[in-house]
């Protein structure tokens, strides 16, 4: 079993297999995104109270899911690297951290924009948005810690531990923020749950959530592949790759 497990972990194997079905994933992601966006923007009925501004939900909710899911992906990759010392896991974690941070920022940004027409202010200390802010701090902690180490191996281990500590604390932070929110504004509407939606509004949301999961996978793999090239640039197979690509480009360039 061990042989298989290590082969799975070899960056080169990952690079080649992901190379094969990456284009399909890209096409699928694009298709889902376009369908979902059009459906949500143009075909879904308007929300009775919020009017058309509710359509931002089609970005805000999926991205919020991904932001949280992304943290767990990063923590798991970190743990695999910490326990079994598989280099590929460290590369996946290096790719997942900035990606997750960008998605969390996007979630906060779209949440803020959505807040303006609905409650009149860009920033409202609502439970979900506050938890999202804390998640962003957790991400930034990992990203900044990653860049401040000179040695890459120690950086990988340190970030893995920080991500694990963060993962363990997320439920506590989310619960305590919810508890805090009900303490200070018990009366106002409970925003965190998606409002019971009309099926026509809900279907595009499902499509968008699926689209964003594919998007996350696509970008994660893209970043991991680049990280592999970066770390394995001294190896023979990467140089052959560079040469083979060179031949292709020269071929096409002298054709014109």
């Amino acid at each position: 079993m061990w042989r298989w497990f290590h082969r799975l972990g070899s960056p080169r194997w990952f690079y080649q297999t992901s190379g094969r079905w990456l284009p399909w994933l890209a096409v699928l992601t694009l298709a889902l995104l376009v369908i979902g966006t059009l459906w949500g923007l143009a075909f879904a009925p308007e929300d009775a109270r919020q009017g058309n501004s509710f359509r931002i939900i089609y970005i805000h909710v999926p991205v919020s899911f991904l932001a949280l899911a992304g943290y767990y992906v990063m923590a798991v990759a970190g743990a695999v690297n910490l326990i079994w010392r598989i280099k590929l896991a460290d590369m996946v974690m290096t790719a997942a951290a900035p990606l997750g941070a960008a998605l969390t920022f996007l979630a906060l940004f779209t949440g803020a924009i959505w807040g303006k027409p609905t409650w009149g202010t860009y920033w409202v200390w609502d439970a979900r948005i506050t938890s999202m802010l804390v998640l962003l701090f957790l991400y930034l902690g990992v990203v900044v810690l990653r860049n401040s180490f000179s040695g890459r191996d120690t950086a990988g281990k340190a970030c893995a531990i920080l991500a694990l500590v963060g993962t363990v604390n997320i439920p506590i932070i989310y619960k305590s923020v919810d508890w805090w929110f009900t303490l200070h504004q018990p009366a106002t509407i409970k925003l965190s749950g998606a409002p019971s939606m009309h099926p026509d509004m809900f279907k595009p949301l499902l499509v968008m959530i699926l689209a964003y999961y594919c998007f996350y996978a696509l970008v994660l793999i893209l970043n991991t592949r680049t990280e592999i090239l970066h770390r394995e640039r001294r190896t023979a197979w990467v140089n052959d790759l560079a040469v083979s690509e060179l031949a292709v480009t020269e071929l096409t360039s002298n054709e014109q």
Partner: protein
Amino acid sequence: MNIQFDGFYFESLAEFFAMGGHATYVWGAYGVALVVMVWLVVRPLLRRASILNELRQNLKKRQHSLYEESR
């Protein structure tokens, strides 16, 4: 000019862009989302290209220096 799909919520394309007065917010959010997502996809591709170029430079230099020595 109004394009009628079945179920197209808005009466006309112009109204679609107006978004019932919330145009800036909806298009703002979608616009920023688009920018961030495109940047997330493009960044690794650019970085990949620069790494491969760098390798090619080294390979060319090494071939060049070998060629110099052999002469």
